[in-house]
C-alpha cells in the first residue's frame, strides 16, 4: 500500500536550500563563459545636462580595453526601451527612453557610454578616463516642483513634465461628502525608496553567429518578458533570443524591468563576437536600478459622527523619474487607485493621480507596488478619524469592515473582492496582543509620562495578477495568465515547468507540494524548472504576489489534467470504467477489488510505451495549462505594532509586532510565515529609516548602504506571524498571494503606533521615515 501523501499545508523543508547553503547557488555574476569580456558603464554625474562631447582617447589607451561605445556607435543596434503599461484615459505621454543617452542626460546615473575590456579591473580603470563634457541644465527633483510653471522641461513630448493624469471614480463622492458630519484632511508623503535586493544586477550576453541566437543570462524576475522587450529593443527575432535567469538574489520588483544596460550588453555581444559580462556595483545599483514609491498624497475622508466612513477623495502626485520604466505607469494608478477603500464598505471614492517626470532615477514596482501607497493612507486616515471623533481606532475599524457574508463584494471603485473575513483576522490579532490590557497599560503609562503607542493596520490588497481581460484593459501589454507543464517521465519522476520565476519565495518546493498532493507522487521525486525561456512555456514571471495563486493555480490544473489522463489510461489497462476507479496516494484501484490497481508510475511507463492506449488518448503522461484567472485575489489581515518612545532622544523601540494574515489556502505554512517576516521588515524599514535623498542638484546622497539605511538584525524587531484561512473561491487551490502583504501592512502599523504614543503632544501627522529627530521635534515642539 502506498504511503499516504500529505503535502499540501505541510511545512516541508525547502528543496532549493541545499545548493544555497553549500555555496552552489548559480547567480549570474558567478557564471563565466570562455572568452568573456567585461563592460562598465560611464554614468552622468549631472541630473540634467546637454551631452556635448565624449572623448575616449585616454580610456582606449589602457591595456586590455577593447572599445568605448556611445549611443552614436550603437545606433541601429539598440533602440529605445518601451514602456509596457500604457494606462488608458490618462493622456499618457511616452517620450523616448534611450538605452544610452544621446543629446541630453535626464538623471544622475543615466549611462552615456560603455567601456569593454578584457578584465573587469581594466574596464573600471578605463571608465575613469572617459572624458565627458556636459552643459548643465536646471534640475527638478521633486514632483510638485516639476509641475510648477517655469520648471525645466525634461521631454518635449510631455509639456509641464506631466506623464499622465489618471482619474478613477466610484459611487457618488460629492453626495457622500455632503452627508458627512466630519471630514478629515491630511497630506502624506510616501517617500522614495531604493529596493536594495542583496544581489546587484548582472547580465552576460553571448551571440552565436552560426545559429544567430543570442543568449542572455540576466537577473530577471520574468525572463520571457525580458525576451519580448529585448526583441523589440534590439530588432531581433523573438524566438532567437534565449533568456536564462538562474538563481536570483532577491528582486522585490526591481528586477522586473528590462533595463537599457541589459540591451546594450546584448548589442555588444553581437558586435564583438565575444560574451560580454556586466555586474552592477552597489553604488551603481543605487542610481541605476529603479526606485520605488515617491507619492505626494492629498486625502479627504468623509464620515458620520459615529465613525462610519462614507467616502474618500485622493489626489496623488507620483514621481515617475526621468523616464517611464517597464511597468511604471500602472503602479501609482491601477494598483493604487482601486484600493483606496481598503477593507471598508465605503460607498464612494474619487482618485486623481498625476504622474510627473523629474530628474531622478526612474520609479517602478517595489514590493507592494501601489498597494502600500494606498493602504498606508487609508489606515492613517482611519486613525486620524478615530482621533477626531475621540473613538478607539479599533472600534472605527470594526464598524466599517465589509461583513464576512457579503463576499464576493463589489467595491465602489469597481472591482470585486473575492473572499474575506476581516473581523476574524482582526479579532485574532487584538486577542493575541490583549488589546484591552494594552490600552489600560497605556492610560497608566501616560499618567507617568511614559510614551507608549499601539498601532493597528487592517488591510486588504489586490494581487494574483491577474485576469487578462481586466489587465489588458488597463493598458498592460500582456495577459497575466499562469503557465505550466507537468510532465511525468517514463520512470515516474516528475518535472514541473513553470512560467513563474521565484527568487526566494520557495516554489521549487511549494509547486512540488501541489503536484505531490494531486498525484500522490513524493515531493522528492518532483523537480520544478523555471527561469529559462527554452525550457519553460511562455511565462509572465514572479511579482505582484501572482506566483502562488496564478502560476500555482496553473500547476494544480496541469496536475489534475495529468491525473485525469492517468485515470483514462489506468481504466483501460485495468479493463474497468473510469468511474469505478479510486485514486488515492498515487494509486488507481478498482472499487471493491483492491488488488486490481496501477500506480501512477506504472501508468506513466505505459503512456511512454503507448502500445495499449485507450482510443483518442495521446502517448506520454503530461499536461500543459495556460490558466487565466477569473479575478484578482485579495488577501487581508490585521497587524498590531506596540512601541515605546524615549522622549529624550525620540528613539522608538518596537516592543511587539503581531501579524495576522489571510492568504487563503496555504501550501507551506513555514514559507508563508517567512514571506510575512520579510515583507513586514521592508515596510518597517520604510517607516523607521529608509529614504532615497536627493540634493537640489539631483545628486543622490543615499548611494550606498552607509547612507541608505536598511535594517540589520539589531534594528529589526521580533515579528510574530499568525494566520486565518479564508480560501479564494475562484482559485484552483483556494490560494491568494502573501509575498507583499507584510510590506503593505507594516508601515502604517508602525506609524500609527508612534503617532498614538505622541498623541499627548497634539501632533496629527509625521511623514516617514520617523527618524528619532522627527519624533523628538514633535515631542519638544521644535
Amino acid at each position, binding site marked *: 500500500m502506498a504511503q499516504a501523501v500529505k503535502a499540501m499545508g505541510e511545512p516541508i523543508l525547502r528543496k532549493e536550500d541545499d545548493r544555497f*547553503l553549500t555555496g552552489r547557488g548559480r547567480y549570474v555574476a558567478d557564471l563565466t563563459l570562455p572568452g568573456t569580456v567585461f563592460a562598465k558603464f560611464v554614468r552622468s554625474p549631472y541630473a540634467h545636462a546637454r551631452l556635448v562631447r565624449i572623448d575616449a582617447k585616454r580610456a582606449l589607451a589602457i591595456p586590455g580595453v577593447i572599445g568605448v561605445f556611445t549611443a552614436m556607435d550603437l545606433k541601429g543596434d539598440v533602440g529605445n526601451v518601451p514602456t509596457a503599461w500604457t494606462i488608458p484615459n490618462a493622456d499618457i505621454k511616452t517620450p523616448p527612453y534611450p538605452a544610452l543617452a544621446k543629446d541630453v542626460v535626464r538623471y544622475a546615473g543615466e549611462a552615456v557610454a560603455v567601456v569593454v575590456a578584457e578584465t573587469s579591473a581594466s574596464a573600471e580603470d578605463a571608465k575613469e578616463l572617459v572624458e565627458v563634457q556636459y552643459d548643465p541644465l536646471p534640475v527638478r527633483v521633486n514632483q510638485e516642483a516639476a509641475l510648477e510653471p517655469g520648471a525645466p522641461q525634461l521631454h518635449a513630448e510631455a509639456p509641464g513634465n506631466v506623464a499622465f493624469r489618471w482619474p478613477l471614480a466610484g459611487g457618488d463622492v460629492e453626495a457622500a461628502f455632503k452627508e458627512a458630519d466630519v471630514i478629515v484632511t491630511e497630506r502624506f508623503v510616501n517617500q522614495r525608496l531604493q529596493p536594495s535586493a*542583496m544581489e546587484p544586477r548582472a547580465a552576460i550576453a553571448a551571440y552565436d553567429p552560426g545559429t544567430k541566437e543570442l543568449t542572455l543570462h540576466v537577473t530577471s524576475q520574468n525572463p520571457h518578458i525580458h525576451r519580448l522587450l529585448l526583441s523589440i529593443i534590439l530588432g531581433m527575432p523573438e524566438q532567437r533570443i534565449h533568456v536564462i535567469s538562474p538563481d536570483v538574489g*532577491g528582486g522585490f520588483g526591481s528586477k522586473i524591468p528590462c533595463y537599457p544596460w541589459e540591451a546594450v550588453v546584448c548589442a555588444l555581444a553581437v558586435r564583438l563576437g565575444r560574451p560580454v559580462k556586466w555586474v552592477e556595483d552597489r*553604488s551603481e545599483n543605487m542610481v541605476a536600478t529603479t526606485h520605488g514609491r515617491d507619492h505626494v498624497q492629498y486625502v479627504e475622508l468623509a464620515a458620520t459622527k459615529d465613525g462610519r466612513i462614507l467616502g474618500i477623495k485622493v489626489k496623488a502626485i507620483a514621481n515617475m523619474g526621468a523616464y517611464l520604466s517597464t511597468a511604471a505607469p500602472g503602479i501609482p494608478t491601477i494598483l493604487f487607485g482601486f484600493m483606496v477603500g481598503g477593507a471598508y464598505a465605503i460607498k464612494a471614492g474619487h482618485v486623481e493621480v498625476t504622474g510627473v517626470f523629474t530628474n531622478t532615477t526612474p520609479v517602478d514596482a517595489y514590493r507592494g507596488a501601489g498597494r502600500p501607497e494606498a493602504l498606508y493612507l487609508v489606515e492613517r486616515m482611519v486613525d486620524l478619524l478615530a482621533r477626531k471623533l475621540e473613538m478607539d481606532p479599533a472600534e472605527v475599524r470594526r464598524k466599517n469592515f465589509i461583513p464576512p457574508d457579503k463576499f464576493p463584494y463589489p467595491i465602489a471603485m469597481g472591482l470585486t473582492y473575492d473572499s474575506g473575513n476581516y473581523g476574524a483576522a482582526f479579532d485574532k490579532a487584538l486577542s493575541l496582543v490583549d488589546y484591552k490590557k494594552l490600552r489600560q497599560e497605556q492610560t497608566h503609562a501616560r499618567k507617568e509620562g511614559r510614551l507608549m503607542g499601539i498601532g493597528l493596520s487592517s488591510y486588504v490588497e489586490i494581487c494574483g495578477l491577474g485576469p487578462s481581460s481586466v489587465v489588458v484593459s488597463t493598458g498592460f501589454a500582456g495577459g497575466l495568465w499562469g503557465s505550466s507543464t507537468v510532465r511525468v517521465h517514463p520512470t515516474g519522476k516528475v518535472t514541473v515547468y513553470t512560467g513563474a520565476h521565484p527568487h526566494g519565495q520557495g516554489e521549487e518546493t511549494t509547486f512540488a507540494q501541489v503536484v505531490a498532493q494531486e498525484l500522490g507522487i513524493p515531493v522528492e521525486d518532483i523537480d520544478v524548472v523555471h527561469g529559462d525561456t527554452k525550457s519553460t512555456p511562455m511565462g509572465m514571471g514572479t511579482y505582484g504576489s501572482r506566483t502562488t495563486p496564478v502560476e500555482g493555480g496553473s500547476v494544480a490544473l496541469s496536475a489534475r489534467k495529468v491525473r485525469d489522463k492517468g485515470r483514462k489510461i489506468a481504466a483501460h489497462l485495468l479493463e474497468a470504467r473510469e468511474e469505478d476507479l479510486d485514486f488515492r496516494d498515487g494509486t488507481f484501484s478498482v472499487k471493491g477489488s483492491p488488488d486490481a490497481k496501477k500506480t501512477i508510475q506504472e501508468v506513466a511507463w505505459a503512456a511512454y510505451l503507448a502500445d495499449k492506449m485507450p482510443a483518442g488518448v495521446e502517448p506520454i503522461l503530461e499536461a500543459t495549462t495556460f490558466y487565466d484567472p477569473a479575478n484578482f485575489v485579495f488577501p487581508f489581515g490585521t497587524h498590531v505594532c506596540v512601541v515605546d518612545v524615549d522622549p529624550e532622544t525620540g528613539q522608538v523601540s518596537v516592543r511587539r509586532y503581531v501579524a495576522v494574515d489571510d492568504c487563503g489556502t496555504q501550501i507551506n505554512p513555514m514559507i508563508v510565515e517567512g514571506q510575512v*517576516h520579510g515583507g513586514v521588515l521592508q515596510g518597517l524599514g520604510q517607516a523607521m529609516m529608509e529614504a532615497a535623498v536627493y540634493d537640489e542638484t539631483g545628486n543622490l546622497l543615499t548611494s550606498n548602504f552607509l547612507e541608505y539605511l536598511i535594517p540589520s538584525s539589531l534594528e529589526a524587531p521580533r515579528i510574530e506571524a499568525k494566520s486565518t484561512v479564508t480560501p479564494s473561491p475562484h482559485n484552483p487551490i483556494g490560494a491568494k498571494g502573501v509575498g507583499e502583504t507584510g510590506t503593505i501592512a507594516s508601515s502604517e502599523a508602525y506609524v500609527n503606533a508612534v503617532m498614538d504614543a505622541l498623541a499627548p503632544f497634539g501632533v496629527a501627522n509625521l511623514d516617514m521615515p520617523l527618524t528619532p529627530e522627527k519624533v523628538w521635534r514633535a515631542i519638544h515642539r521644535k
Partner: protein
Amino acid sequence: MTSHMRGRIAADGQIRIAVTVNGSKVERSVEPRTLLVDFLRDELRLTGTHVGCDTSHCGACTVLLDGRSVKSCTMFAVQADGASVTTIEGLAQHGRLHPIQQAFKENHGLQCGFCTPGVVLAAMELLQLTKAPTEDEIRTGISGNLCRCTGYVNIVKSVAAAAEMMSGGR
C-alpha cells in the same frame, strides 16, 4: 626594497601568495589590488562567497580567516598570505551538511540565498565563541550581515537551533 618579500614579487608586480583554503593549500600569483573575495571567486572559482555592496556593509562576502569572520571584500588577497580561509564551500563534509547548515534548512533561515553563505559563516564564529548565545547575542553576532528577504526572524531561530545541535542538544 624587497628584502622582506624576497622572491615573491614578480617582474610584472604580481605577488606570490600561499593560502590554505578549505583545508587545501593553494599557491597563486596575484595583483596586489585583487580583493580576497575576487581571488576566491575568480581565481579559485569558489563562487559561494558573494559581493553585495561596495562599502563593507552587507557582509555577503564574509569568510573565516584563521577562524575569525572577516569581510573578504575589505581585504586584499595578499593580506591572506599564509593564512587559513574557510568559505561556505568548506563547511559540508563528505556530502553531509554541517549542523549549522542543517539548522538553517530546518528553520527556513534563507529565502533567496544570496546573503546566506555570509550569515552562516558569521554565525559559525559566533557559535565557536559562545556556545549558548542569547537572542541578543545572536542578533549582535550577525549584525554585520544584511538580509532583505527573511526579516532575520528565522535566521535567529536557525542560529539558536544550531547552537543547540552543536552543543550536543541533539
